[in-house]
């Protein structure tokens, strides 16, 4: 099994495969994302409790959810590359970091923008937003490790170990943040689940969700291709590809 994994995981195969795939992913992610957003903005019904500001739901919740799953994917990639020493998964885990931290940042900003009209303040120490902030710090740690080593291999390994520890810590952080929230109960309106999601709200949400995930996949592929260009620059197949402009 390992040999197939190694062959399948060769950067050369991945580069050519993803090179053919990118136009499709690009097209689909942009169209799906825009239909979702326009649907959410124009056609979805307003929420009886929060009015129009509920439309931020279609951006905040997908990005918050994807930020966490991208971190988990990054940890899985690092685990594979540390245990079976496959180079491709090392690069995949590095490229997950940038899109992951951008989604966390979007989730944080939209969270506070959504909260502002309902609470009157920009930031509230509520369980979900705080664990999102901590996820942001976890991402910062991984990116800092990736960029602080001269040797890219040791950098990827060190960041991989931190990603694995981080993923183990995410449930623990969620648990302790929830407990901390109940202990010092700050008086807030629990805004996320307050209003029930009707069907015609669910469809734009699902479209937005797929749009964001396709976009994330697209970014990860682009970033991995760049990483392959850097790390495989000495190999023959890459030199030929550059020569006859197949890049």
């Amino acid at each position, binding site marked *: 099994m390992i040999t197939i994994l190694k062959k399948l995981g060769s950067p050369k195969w991945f580069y050519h495969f993803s090179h053919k795939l990118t136009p499709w992913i690009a097209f689909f992610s942009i169209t799906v994302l825009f239909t979702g957003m326009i649907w959410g903005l124009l056609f979805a019904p307003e929420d009886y409790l929060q009015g129009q500001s509920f439309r931020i739901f279609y951006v905040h919740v997908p990005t918050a959810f994807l930020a966490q799953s991208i971190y988990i994917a990054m940890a899985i990639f690092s685990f594979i590359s540390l245990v079976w020493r496959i180079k491709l998964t090392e690069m995949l885990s590095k490229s997950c970091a940038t899109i992951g931290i951008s989604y966390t940042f979007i989730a944080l900003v939209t969270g506070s923008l959504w909260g502002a009209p309902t609470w009157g303040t920009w930031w509230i120490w509520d369980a979900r937003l705080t664990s999102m902030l901590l996820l942001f710090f976890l991402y910062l740690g991984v990116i800092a490790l990736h960029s602080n080593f001269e040797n890219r*291999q040791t950098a990827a390994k060190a960041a991989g170990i931190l990603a694995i520890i981080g993923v183990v810590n995410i449930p623990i952080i969620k648990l302790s943040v929830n407990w901390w929230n109940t202990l010092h109960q700050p008086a807030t309106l629990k805004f996320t689940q307050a209003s029930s999601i009707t069907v015609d709200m669910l469809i734009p949400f699902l479209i937005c969700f797929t749009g964001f995930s396709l976009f994330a996949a697209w970014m990860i592929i682009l970033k991995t291709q760049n990483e392959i260009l850097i790390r495989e620059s000495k190999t023959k197949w890459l030199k030929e590809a550059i020569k006859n402009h197949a890049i």
Partner: protein
Amino acid sequence: MDHNRNSLSPIFSLTGNNLSFFRNDQVIFRNISFDISQEKLLFVTGQNGAGKTSLLKIITGLQRDYTGSILFNKQPIHSLQEAYRSIFLYLGHQTAITKNQSVLENLQFYMNLSPKNSINAPKSFIKTQLQKLKLDHLGEILCSQLSAGQLRRVALTRLFISNEINQHRLWILDEPFVSLDHKGFETLQNLMEDFIKKGNSIILTSHQHVNVDAPTYTLDLPEGEFTRV
């Protein structure tokens, strides 16, 4: 001259087959193979950056990020774990001497860490070994006050100890002769001869020429021809 043959099983073989090693995605060496058994000296040669130290670290098992395999008595070294690590002594570029402890404490510490340390009077025993490189007057002095050359010789005294109580079967030495005067060079060479005659072997990298009358092999990096001298 009867050498007390090493109590461990006399025969041992250490083979590396088509080892290749990459650092920072650059090829350091590719498809290197070597095969040494007891009573042999392996001389690893090559310019700086040809991967000599990396090869030694691969043999010790510290560096695991390489392709190919290393077998000790026909068994991969990673499956042997502690059994393999009790066989060899590795002296790298760093002297591995703690600055805030005296010379005796340092050497005593390393003796305590090895399985074979049934020495009744450890202090006087270490003192006699220190004499061999003319360090016996430094026993109680803090290592932070020693010069680089003296520190090197304190590290090399561990070889004398290892030879005296047959601690190891294999020495893996990275540039052991650096900053040694002519007299020290001589004593170390005789020590190596004595060690090899006892049925052990040495893997060595050095820029100086070493003539030890024992079957020597050279492994030139990065091409990797393995020739018998």
